[in-house]
């Protein structure tokens, strides 16, 4: 594929993103993720390709989508459309005939040029606030070639770049991004490989190795810990993560991100069958307590993100 034709799949662009790195930023959400974290609040970032989102509550049951679907993927069952995801080719025909806006496609293809045009619109805000762009997702490493192209173009324009990554991907991909990345925000969810696998679907060995690789290479890091009740909210669990962070030389800050249940409803709309954690957000006091646990090790800590 020619470089200029390289396209990425994104599911959102968020401007005035003020919690995804320094200053005022534009966050680009890339589709595709190797993990299936049960608490994920962006499950529309899981699949690499565009996919259909169905808002059941909005559906009027008119059945227009059934006839609009060229694949015959939708049938009406008891007045409600039911879809066979295997057959769906994400053409979007059903979304354009749905005037109750119950159907939408999450994810679209963009070229680096198109994305840059959108990113550059907010340059005045980056300049004023020392902000820039943040690639997040999903997982940027899943589209490393595209991300590298976008990051390189940003650096050509002297725009600050941040990559928010789970670090679960080939080290070479990470290396390819690191060349044009000013700051990495790396998730560390748990130090125990078995528990990690149980809750995210993947081992953590590669993740921890990759983070160490970045640190050894001198990349600036923010370590982000999603604090999920029943998974890693015990002080000793957080402490173990911090112990790992202490072995890295380039950690600028540790973020504690309290779990919220925003992903539960989204997963339903995506008709996902994988396990979804539905727990309560941690109490404020609990977060303050954990903050002190981290601070004791001499790190800057930010709660919420």
């Amino acid at each position: 594929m020619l470089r200029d034709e390289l396209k990425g799949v994104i599911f959102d662009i968020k401007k005035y993103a003020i919690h995804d790195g320094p200053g005022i930023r534009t966050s680009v959400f890339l589709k595709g993720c190797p993990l299936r974290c049960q608490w994920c609040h962006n499950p529309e970032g899981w699949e690499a390709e565009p996919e259909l989102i169905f808002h059941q509550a909005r559906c009027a049951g008119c059945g227009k989508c059934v006839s609009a679907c060229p694949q015959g993927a939708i049938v009406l069952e008891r007045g409600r459309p039911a879809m066979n995801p295997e057959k769906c080719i994400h053409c979007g025909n059903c979304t354009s005939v749905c005037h109750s806006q119950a159907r939408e496609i999450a994810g679209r293809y963009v070229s680096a040029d198109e994305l840059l045009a959108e990113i550059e619109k907010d340059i005045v805000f980056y300049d004023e606030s020392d902000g820039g762009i943040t690639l997040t997702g999903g997982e940027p490493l899943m589209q490393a070639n595209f991300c590298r192209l976008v990051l390189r173009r940003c650096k050509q324009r002297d725009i600050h770049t941040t990559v928010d990554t789970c670090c679960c991907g080939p080290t070479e991909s990470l290396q390819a991004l690191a060349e044009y990345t000013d700051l990495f925000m790396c998730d560390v969810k748990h130090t125990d490989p078995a528990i990690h696998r149980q809750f995210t679907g993947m081992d953590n060995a590669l993740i921890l190795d990759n983070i160490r690789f970045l640190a050894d290479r001198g990349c600036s890091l923010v370590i982000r810990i999603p604090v999920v009740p029943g998974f890693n909210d015990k002080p000793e669990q957080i402490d173990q993560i911090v112990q790992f962070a202490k072995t890295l030389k380039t950690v600028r800050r540790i973020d504690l991100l309290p779990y919220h249940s925003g992903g539960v409803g989204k997963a339903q709309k995506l008709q996902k069958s994988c396990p979804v954690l539905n727990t309560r957000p941690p109490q404020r006091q609990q977060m303050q307590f954990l903050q002190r646990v981290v601070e004791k090790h001499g790190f800057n800590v930010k709660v919420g993100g």
Partner: protein
Amino acid sequence: MNARILKLRKQSVERKPYISSERAELITDFYQSGIGMEVSAPVFRGLALKHLMENKSICINDGELIVGERGPGPKATYTYPELCCHTLEDFDVMSRRQRTSFDVSESVKKVYAERIIPFWGGKTMREKVFGAMTADWHRAFEAGVFTEFMEQRAPGHAILDDKIYHRGLLEFQSDINDQLKKLDYHNDPEAWHKEQELKGMSLSIEAVLTLSRRYADKCGELAAVESDPARKAELEQMEAICRHVPAQAPRTFHEALQAYWFVHVAVITELNVWDSYNPGRLDQHLWPFYERQIAEGTLTAEKGKELLECFWIKFNNQPAPPKVGITEEQSGTYTDFALINIGGVDPKTGADAVNALSYLMLDVVEEMRLVQPSACIQISAKNPERFLRRACKVIRCGFGQPSVFNTDVIIREMLHHGKSMVDARSGGPSGCVETSAFGKESCTLTGYCNWPKIFELAMNNGIDPRTGLQVGPKTGQFDTLSDFDSLMQAYRSQLKHFIDMKVHGNNVIERLYATFMPAMFMSVITDDCIAKGRNYHNGGPRYNSTYIQGVGLGSLTDAMAAVKYHVYDKKTISAKTLREALKADFVGHEKLRSQLESSPRWGCDEDYADAIAVELFNIYYDLVNGRPNTKGGQYHINLLPTTVHVYFGQVTGALPHGRKAGLPLSDGISPTQGTRSYGPTTVIKSAAKIDHARTGGTLLNMKFTPQTLEGDGLEKLGHLIRSYFKLDGHHIQFNVINKDTLLAAQRNPTEYRDLIVRVAGYSDYFVDLGPDLQNEIIARTEMTQLG
């Protein structure tokens, strides 16, 4: 706030505004006396003010340090029958309406029925104004194409500079005497006119000095019988202050505040001028007194704050004079638009002018949380970050103050309007967002212009679909216009027709005020009325600007973008179908409506819609800006709504972007309520595409939830403001509240009596707004950021 302030604030907030007939009776007596037949209008109005000041009641509230009420007590509200004589029905409406209601006692109604109404029939300014307008003008006015500011209230919009802090009124009087001596009756055909103006001005000074003397006497009387030695000492000091100012230049911080307040009371007693009066750049004017006294040890920051808080309460004690009819619809609020400026630059050097008092005033704003006075900060690139940060902290409290203005672009606006650099730098915003050269300008707002209504007429060959009347010229039916340019041309022709009509009306009304209702005291305190021997209403000020305020930029842009996109570019909807859907208010056309709603919108930083907004702006600018008024000045444009976007929405039918008939229009230059965008940066980018430097003010509203502003969110709000100002944005203001809070307030108004929100260029109690406006505020795009 200390116990004194708590008590005074409580008294001010809890007292419901009520009508006092005192002024109406005094002015009626005076007009009935027949003196008007003996002397010229300027002398007569000077004598009238004197009569008022000699006979009005004097009120000193327990514990207060700054004295002077307009009426018999806090929240007493005068009427001005020589301008607008209320009927008994008006009083009935006023006392019952949900928004801005006033208590009207039986005795007031009796006095009106027996003495006031019988005398004024046929003699008021309101009748003169309406009587002088053409039938076409009335048809457009009634259709809601434009409003008329001067049908119930006098032109004003005036702001004071620093003149009264350097010189006493006796010195102004001696200036007047000098001018009188210089009059050249041999060579100056205007000499007699000038003489009459100057004599009237001199009489108005006597009137104001009568008021301060009566207050001094009253302080003395109260001191004599006061048993508390501390209060006795205060009253004695206040007596001495009232004997000194405003006759002579103030010597202390306390005297300076009192001097201003007497001037303020005089201005709002003389006439019911729009936007009451305004101390302008108060932190600058008071700084020399404050700095010196702090250094001498004769004043502490704490005492200074207490005096400022006493001063703040005085504004809140004076509700805007009662409005009725369309004037109430366009400006339905108790607030009378005094806008205290904090920050900015030094007029002579252009250097950063933020001082310790600027910060102290922000403390006062934060503590007082009153709807009046309103406060704003002026931010130049030169002003320090910490000042902006401190202001953002006050904004975060969520009562809509301070609003934020861009000093650097305001200076350019004024230079563009032909003002000198020093005058431009000493000015700023007043009222809502309009700029003027403080102390030197008559900047008259004459009425709002309903852009979407005019577009509706352009789509209907000049016929108002609401009434079937031919209101505008015949520019063709929408479905006969072949392309978007033709539609734009039809809109332009309609707009030109109404701007011509409005200017025609204004030119007559300006003369009516100059002839019948000269403002004598305002002429004394506005440069260069004394030097020219001309009245404030007649070109006396150094600068004389007239505005017609454009309303509905967001709504009209969205409406036009929807037509362009669907009818002309994509051809997905035929002109005929769209016309039918609009006529039916989308009933039976729901699918079409949702299709239209997803058209390109203003506020998303997308050029498709934004280019239309820029064109609409330029068309308006070209039709209005630079036209001569009758006072030697020019017309300029500004884009602000007060509450008129609700009224204008009521008279405007369905619009092509899916807006149903009767709903509020967009406010200021803000996007249409509920517009989905990528967030505040896109709104700012769109808003900055129009050329603010060629206006006299624009208004941009944004709503944030408190969560967005926690932690470093506050600093990022500062970055957002700085970025907008780098792009030449004129003004931005914030509502920081939860939607849930507002809904709760709607359900339980008594529990939320304190809740203040930013409406347009001012803040107001949420529960005092009518239900439409409440809903509109709730609907304004919520810029929520989820973690």
